[in-house]
């Protein structure tokens, strides 16, 4: 029995090595002479990309939104399963969480855009000569704008990217200005119904910070980083003026469901309409729809102030 099994394993192994040797054999680096190249500084270093790439694969919902917002949508051939916006984006089974190099290469991309380097995907794609742009989750507003600028440069849409950044900045500033300061208002931003939340240091936390809102989770910063699981007792005790639900889609939460949680019925936010149902996606992406999130927050601040 045992030798047979070993033989089987050897055969399987041999076939696998053969297959991988044949795979990715499209290594004719036929960079057409004269075709321009652009170089973009991304998180994975300086990346050289053929001018106006025509087969872009995006594995990041945020970057998919940006690509379409700056007019590069027609150059996109495939996006990951969670790139739900815009509707016209060519959604596939590709995953940004467990990316599969061969599945990506199957689209013969001349540019791959992603926000996470999972499973060593960046190295794998670089090995076979596919230009990869790693633009990780922004940690502040300026980084978000920089990434849009990068994508503009990489796809040949510099002007549109610059225009998008300009309007985003203006929209956000206008909302913050017309809203005015939040005074002493406190808030809680919910990521899931296990009370995972964000502190002021996170990207979303900084967006709330634009209004001067005070985050009730900040005391948990030192113990558990930017995304603590908040104690239910602490939440009740703090009694925040505003509760923002970024788990309406993932976990089916809304103003009614939170009102039914033990002890929540007497919270001021629940009693006085301070529970705000966000769109999970808009609240977790750092792309072109950011002004919408800012506007929602501004409206809520005006409502309860």
């Amino acid at each position, binding site marked *: 029995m045992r030798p047979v099994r070993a033989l089987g394993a050897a055969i399987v192994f041999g076939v696998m090595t053969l297959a991988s040797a044949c795979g990715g054999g499209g290594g004719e680096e036929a960079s057409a002479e004269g075709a321009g190249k652009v170089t973009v500084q991304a998180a994975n270093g300086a990346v050289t990309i053929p001018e106006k790439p025509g087969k872009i694969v995006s594995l990041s919902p945020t970057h998919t939104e940006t690509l379409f917002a700056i007019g590069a949508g027609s150059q996109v051939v495939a996006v990951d399963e969670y790139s739900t916006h815009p509707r016209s984006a060519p959604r596939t089974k590709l995953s940004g969480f467990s990316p599969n190099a061969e599945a990506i290469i199957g689209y013969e991309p001349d540019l791959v855009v992603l926000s996470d380097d999972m499973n060593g995907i960046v190295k794998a794609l670089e090995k076979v000569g596919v230009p990869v742009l790693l633009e990780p989750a922004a940690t502040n507003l300026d980084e978000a704008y920089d990434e849009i600028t990068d994508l503009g440069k990489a796809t040949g849409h510099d002007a549109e990217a610059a225009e998008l950044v300009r309007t985003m900045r203006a929209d956000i500033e206008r909302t913050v200005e017309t809203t005015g300061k939040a005074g002493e208002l406190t808030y809680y931003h919910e990521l899931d*119904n*296990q009370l995972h939340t964000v502190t002021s240091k996170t990207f979303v936390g900084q967006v709330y910070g634009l209004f001067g809102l005070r985050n009730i*989770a900040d005391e*948990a910063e030192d*113990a558990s980083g930017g995304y603590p699981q908040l104690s*239910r*007792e602490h939440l*009740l005790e703090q009694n925040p003026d505003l509760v923002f639900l970024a788990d309406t889609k993932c976990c089916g939460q809304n103003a009614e469901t939170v009102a039914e949680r*033990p*002890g929540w019925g007497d919270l001021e936010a629940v009693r006085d309409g301070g529970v705000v149902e966000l769109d999970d996606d808009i609240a977790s992406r750092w792309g072109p729809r950011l002004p919408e999130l800012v506007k929602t927050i501004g409206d809520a601040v005006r409502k309860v102030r």
Partner: protein
Amino acid sequence: MRPVPLASAVAVLAAVLLAGLFVGAADLPFGGVLAALADRLPFVRLDSGLSVIEENVLFELRLPRVLMAALVGGMLAMAGAGYQGVFRNPLADPYLLGAASGAGVGATLVIVLLRGDLGFGVPIAAFAGALLGVLLAYSLGRTAGAAGGAATLVLAGVAVSLFLSAVQTFLQQLGTEELQRIYAWILGGVGGADWAQLALVGPYALVSTVILLAHGRLLDVLSVGDEEAAALGLSAQRVRLTVLVAASLATASAVAVSGLIGFVGIVVPHVVRRLAGGSYRIVLPLSLLGGAAFLAVADLVARTVIAPGELPLGVVTAFVGGPFFVAVLRASRRQVEA
């Protein structure tokens, strides 16, 4: 002799539960909590001075959470003692035998396939999974080593647990929509405990407790040997099966609400045996009380150590239980060699 340890265990548990009500992430005034609790007693009318929110913290969050921690700990420890009696193996434990991971797969299946919220489906599926996990581990251990020693069964249980964890991971990949909930559940904890949840698993816990405690004496007879049991007109197989089912039900009722919390089922019965001897008539009830106290304390740590953040309960028990388990292993090795 017997009433003494039982009475002291009840006293310890009562003290721990009370302490759990006075300490938490929210700072409630000591006197206010005392008055609010006394106010709930019949014929006592006291103004606690607590605000509505503070009352909610105490009665809607803290009290059910303390009780749930006690229930889960009691069930796991008692189930552990039951398994140890059935398999005549001090290392049998819901976690190591594959019962807990089997319950996990059952619960995950329901969450993923039925999108069910915590209704009756989850505990029942967890129960079926727990039973399946144990039987799988036991039959594997039997085939691996003729009526294998302590280690064989544990190895079989570990193998089954690993296999079931793989199944669980696979199911999670299918249900990415529910990923958050499943993960929260795996990390283990009683943070979401409320009265509705207690009412849901309370009956299962009660039934399994009654059955297990009633079988203490029979397990004692079994530990002497199957022939002696048969001579007394006792069907060893039937006793084993009954205890196995009841212990799996206890495991499932705990695991369904709290996720995977390891080591309680092995650490507590072992301490009990050291303190009060090996008779199951005393080991079972003491494990119930001791497990309840142990997990209530562990949860107290989980909810206060990094307050206002929360620590997963499974992390706390593993922290205490891991090193302890190694010590038990070494002690039992010595006994075998002696």
